[in-house]
Structures are given as C-alpha cells and as structure tokens.
C-alpha cells in the first residue's frame, strides 16, 4: 500500500496534478473576495477584513468556508479518479495486481484523494479565515463534516474510475458530493455521519469489485 501511495505522490508531483488539486479550492473560495478587495482598492476604499456586499466578514467566512468544503470534496474525488486513471485505462494496473489485490489499488486511490482533499481544505479554509479575519465559530464540527464529505468524494472517485476512465463520469461525483455535503451541514448528527461513513465504505468495496471485474475481462 505504501508503495502505491509513494507512486501516486511522485507521479502527481511530477505532472503537477497535485499542485492543481491542492490549489483549486483556495482559488475558487478566495477569488471572489480578492476580486472585490482589488475593486475596493481601485476605488480608493481599501477594506479589511474582506467581505462580500450585504454580508458581514463572519457571514462571508461561513459562506466561502462551505464553498471550500464542497470544492475540497470534489478535488478529493478528482484526485482519486485521476491518479490511476491512465493505468486502469491502459491495463497497466495489471502490474500492480501482480503484487497487490485490486482492493489495495482502490484503497490507495481513495486514501490519496482523501489526503489531498484534507490538505486542500486546510489551505483554502485557512485562507478564507485570514481574508475575512473571522475564525470559524464551529471549527471542530466543520472539520468533521469536511472530512466525511472528502472521504465520500474520494471513495466515489475510486469507484467511478473503476467503472469508466472517461472524465465525463465525474459529473456523478459533483452531484453526489454537493448533495451529501449540504445534507450533512443541515444537521450534523452522529447517526448521519455514521451513515455517510458507511456509505463511503460501501463505495470503496464496490470500487474494488468493479475494478477486479473490469480488468479481468
């Protein structure tokens, strides 16, 4: 497993996938605020902390914190999908299977997506906090929801690449991640979180089965 993760990290560092994934939530969550801040500066009214019109810095921080969370979960899905995509499409993944079972490959892609998603969320959420000058009032709750959403995104990316290597299939990840994250945020309960974690585990199990069947035909 560690070799697969090392392979994933080295590969994605060299082809710049990792940098793109880590920075995507930061760019998407902070670009609107930066845009408005630059506009204010040109008007000769520089403001800090940043905030969007008709919203307080705290409100802006909450809104863009959710954006960072959703985009990070998507990034986790894209990372898990993309990291072994070419190997699966070209059947070069067979080389991994000779040393490890398919479930190890699925798990490695999901873990890679999860770690990348968590790092991306940490970077983007910190940036939002700094820009708005507003710390998260429910930081622990937000981190827990983000971790579960990112885990679902990763497991889903792992399953989708086992089904098809066509990038268009990621649309499913977008839909599922957005719906799941919003559902989790609406009411954060242990039961909901538990169900979400089990859902992700089921996705991961399905990914291993589909990958084995796909590559054995």
């Amino acid at each position, binding site marked *: 497993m*560690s*070799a*697969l993760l*090392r*392979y994933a990290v*080295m*590969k994605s*560092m*060299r*082809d710049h996938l990792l940098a793109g994934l880590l920075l995507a939530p930061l760019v998407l969550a902070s670009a609107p605020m930066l845009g408005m801040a630059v506009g204010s500066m040109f008007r000769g009214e520089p403001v800090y902390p940043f905030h969007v019109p008709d919203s307080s810095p705290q409100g802006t921080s909450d809104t863009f914190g959710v954006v960072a969370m959703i985009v990070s979960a998507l990034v986790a899905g894209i990372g898990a999908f993309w990291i072994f995509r*070419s*190997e699966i499409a*070209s*059947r*070069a993944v*067979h*080389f*991994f*299977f*000779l*040393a*490890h*079972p398919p479930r190890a490959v699925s798990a490695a892609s999901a873990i890679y997506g999860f770690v990348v998603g968590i790092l991306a969320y940490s970077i983007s959420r910190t940036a939002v906090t700094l820009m708005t000058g507003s710390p998260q009032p429910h930081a622990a709750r937000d981190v827990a929801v983000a971790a579960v959403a990112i885990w679902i995104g990763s497991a889903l990316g792992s399953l989708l690449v086992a089904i098809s290597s066509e990038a268009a299939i990621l649309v499913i990840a977008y839909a599922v991640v957005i719906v799941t994250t919003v559902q989790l945020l609406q009411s954060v309960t242990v039961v909901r979180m538990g169900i979400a974690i089990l859902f992700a585990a089921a996705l991961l199990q399905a990914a291993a089965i589909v990958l084995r069947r796909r*590559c*054995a*035909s």
Partner: protein
Amino acid sequence: MSERAIVAENLLKRYGSVTALRDTSFEVTRGTITGFVGRNGAGKTTTLKILATLLRADDGTCTVANYDVRNAPYEVRRRIGFLPDVFELPSALTLREYLDIFAELYGIHRADRPKRVNTALQLTRSEDLASRRLHALSRGEQQRIGLARALIHNPDILLLDEPAAGLDPHARVELKELLRLLRERGKTVFLSSHVLADLEEICDDLVVIRNGNIIFSGSVAGFRLQMRAKTRWRVSTVTGQISVPPALSGQVVAAGPSSIEFEGDLSPLERARWISELVAHGIGVCEMSPQMTTLEQEFAKAIEEEEEEIA
C-alpha cells in the same frame, strides 16, 4: 519439486459468443525456454493472462509453480514475472524510481532494493536508462524496462508476451542472450512470439496453438520430426519434360522441366525404389534431396494441415 513449471488442462475461455480457448492443454518443463506460437487471435495472450492470474478461464485447470491459478493466485503471482504485449509506463518517473517502487510493491526490504534494482538494470542492459524519465522511449527500450520490472522480484517463471516485438536485430540478439542467461540460472521462460527464427534458436520446447486448440506441444526437434513425416523431396533430373510414372504420380506435388517434387516419409529403401522407378521410365536422376524448411515454413504447414483437417 515437480519438473513441470506450468500445467494447463482443458482450458476453456469465451468472450461472449467467441471461443478464445477450447480444451487447451499443455505443459512447460521447469528450467526450459518454451515458445508459444500461433497466429494473431489464436489465443496466446488469453492463455498467458490466465497463467498470470489476470484472467479467469471459464473451465479447465491450470497450475503454475505447482499452485492452482484459481485457488492460489497470490502464490502464483509471487513466483511469476509477466511482460504483456502492450503496456504503458508512467512518464513522470525515472526508471530507477519505477523499479524501486515495484520492488517495494513486491515487499522487498528497503535495504535490499537498490541491489535488486541494479541487478534488473544490469540483466536487461538498461543502466544507461536508469536516470531517464520514462517518456519518449523507443519500443526496444520499453521492452527492456518491462523485462526489468518483470525480473525485479527474482521470479522462478517468466511469462513473456511477444517480447521481441518491435525490437531491432541487435536488441533481439541481446534479448536472446538474456533469456539464455535466465535459463542457465534455472528460470523457466514461456514466451509467445511471431519471430519463429528467434524461437528456433533459443527454445527447448514449442507449444503451437491454432484457434484456441493446441496442435503441437513438445520439443523443437519433435516438432521438426513431426513435420518431416511429410517432408518434401526434390528430384533433379537430366531429362527435359518429365512424364511421371503412374505408380508414383499420387505423391507428386509439383513437376517441372528438370525436377519433380513429392511429399512423404520415405525410408532409404523407398527412396531407392523411387529412383529405380524413375530410371526405369527413362528419367535420368541427378540428385534426390529433402527440401530444408525453416521453423516458420513448418509452422505455416502445420497450420495449413490443421485447417485442411477441419475443412
């Protein structure tokens, strides 16, 4: 330990309505180089993938290194090195990094990995590629890298699918040297190839497959002997137009102005009878000799005969 490295018995594999393998049975002896010969689509790659545990047969049994590929795939995988016919390499990594990762994947201890990587590089004469990224490589270089990866965990059995494909003559010579070296080290090599001249040079045994059926399995010499049973004989004559004696006409396959050719497994006595018959009909015989054929011609002949039998 059994002398048989690979045993396939009555393998059946279907892809939808297409039957790729039917009742396929053969054996590969430990410590030999065995060539797997067949036309495109004959079932070579399917067979190799089943042996490598990457594909499941619909029926039949198969053991590799005394382990059943269906029931003990992980034991089999630890003991084989597999080189597929086409594969992709990660362009972002260097060869040394790539091999090191595979050494780790196979559970080789960190301290032993550099030595294993160096051995694989030396065996495949890829030291010059060690620090190069795996992109923009020639087909020959890719094949060497694939072989290095297949050898990284020091497997007992090598399954190679068209390892000579795309190699220039020099690289083919190097490949043959490597395979001989591996045989000397006690490895079993089972390789498919279209370059039959190469197989003839290095293989101890041959398995010939046609449309999923094994039509020959045995030594290269045995294959030649089987084919020689119907050797084509050429009689050079001093006579102009030849009129073939009626007693011999049934076996003649070609008659020209100064030669006739016929097929058959002729003992020296029968050959003498032929010559007497021809001389008796006023045909001056200069020479009677078997037509030497390459393995390639014999393979084509075997396939043709099989097709005729089926027809």
